[in-house]
């Protein structure tokens, strides 16, 4: 089913869910994000956030461990400052948290959305300006 307006699309979705069609049997396409549709279908949050959590924690750990261990591998005392200095190493740890977290977010997006979708890239299937609903035959 193809709709031109968001309103008709949402109306049909509500109708389908009310008639007992399972949300996971409904496939939709939209020209822009439709948050109301997610509410109707009761979608759970994306798994991308799990990737970010792991990536971010890995970054923070790497930042602290890498700086501390390299500082300890050749001890160079300067001006009675601590060899392992937490405040300066926090800057590095923060930057690596963001770097690893951001990159794993992108990786997580590719994995969870099964992209790059080679078959779609070479096919003639296009990202159209219309709302579509397809119900899988269960």
């Amino acid at each position, binding site marked *: *089913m193809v709709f031109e307006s*968001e309103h008709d699309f949402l109306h049909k979705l509500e109708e389908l869910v009310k008639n007992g069609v399972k949300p996971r049997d409904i496939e939709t*396409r939209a020209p*822009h994000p439709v948050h109301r549709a997610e509410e109707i279908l009761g979608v759970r949050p*994306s798994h*991308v956030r799990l990737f970010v959590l792991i990536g971010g924690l890995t970054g923070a750990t790497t930042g602290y461990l890498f700086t501390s261990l390299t500082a300890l591998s050749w001890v160079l005392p300067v001006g009675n400052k601590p060899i392992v200095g937490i405040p300066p190493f926090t*800057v590095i740890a923060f930057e690596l948290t963001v770097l690893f977290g951001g990159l794993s977010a992108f990786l997580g*997006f*590719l994995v969870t959305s099964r992209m790059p979708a080679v078959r*779609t890239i070479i096919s003639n299937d296009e990202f159209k300006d219309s709302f579509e609903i397809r119900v899988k035959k269960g």
Partner: protein
Amino acid sequence: MAHSGEVAVAGAKHPASEARLQIERDIIQAMQKPGLLYWGLVGLFATGFGVFLLGAWAMQIYKGIGLGGQLNPVGWGIYIVNFVFWVGIAHSGTLISAVLFLFRSKFRASFNRAAEAMTVIAVMCAGMYPLIHLGRVWYFFWLLPYPNQRMLWTNFKSPLEWDVFAISTYLTISVVFFYVGLIPDFAIVKRYTRGVSRHVYSALSLGWLGTREQWRNYNMLYALLAGFATPLVLSVHSVVSWDFAMGLVPGWHTTIFAPYFVAGAIFSGCAMVLTLCIPMRKIQKLERVMPIEHFEKLAKTMLFTSMIVGYAYIVEFILAYYSGNVYEFGIFRDRALGHYKWQYWGMVFCNVIVPLPLFIKKLRRSLAYLFVTSIFVNIGMWLERFVIIIGSLAHEYTPYAWGNYKPRPVEISITIGTFCFFFMMFLLFAKFMPVVAITEKKEEVH
């Protein structure tokens, strides 16, 4: 694909659908084949980049870093001024795309794509300068921590090393953020192109179809990246400011530096977005998708940050006076009355006085006025970095070691060369990518 009877009657488009298609056409028409004048400009800037930047840099590498004007006591010349200037320019791109996204500001949709492109290009420009500033650039990899033969590691307590991490993270995350925003738009461009370009845009869109799964993951990705980019943008310019503030140089060693630099960065970045977007709107005929109201809002942001910067200029003096430290106050007296007083008062004029008339609504809505103001602000912010860096180094503690600095031709040439590179890259971006985020503009249609 489903083809049941629910499709609207052919020919009679729903008004919302018509509005969405209009947005699509308005933005994509800007990507049509450029005229001779456009290519001429690209060629001009490319030549400028080659001659002024690459040529001068090659000569500096051949003859040695002594070709520039940096000497004791001013060891950091306009290469470092340019570095800080370009990092600052980059910042408002992230501000507009990430911070305003988190605040759900509507006006961001007009500028976020152009601002993100500007960020990526400006960080490239900034990244060149630490390398240009190196005496022996072929040893640049000594900045990176790698397991070398003697297992010596970089000093992670040095602000300069923090900078390596901050700038490279900033470049990477900005590129990812920029590209992620483009994925759905590339899929739209695919629909409008034929032949080889269709394949290229199709590959760049990674097979985007706008399915529920894709949008769900995409929204999560975008929100998380915005969440990461917001503290990142604050950290990067803070780290840049610590390059100075960690040093025991009067005029640098203050805690105000980080917030002061971040506000200044956003201020200069807003000005550069205006400098780029006002001509782009005219040349690319984007009047319908970039309304004046949005420019007015950007002008308000610029005015607000201008006042923060003006406040910082005053507070710096009062803090220096109140500290009772003769060196600290001496440097500030010297800023206003000394060898670089013209630069200082030029900075105050451009950054504090020129933006003030923006309190008048009529002027905020005049694109010509905004364009002129933005040029003044760009100059003013460049002068600010000059005043801070060179003014402080020239007059440190011992009068015997004082000395002034003047940029040499090679430094001026390289500075002009980066501007050429910046404009060349932006012109290319404006023809090969959708300059306004199409799907975000469509979301506003109901």
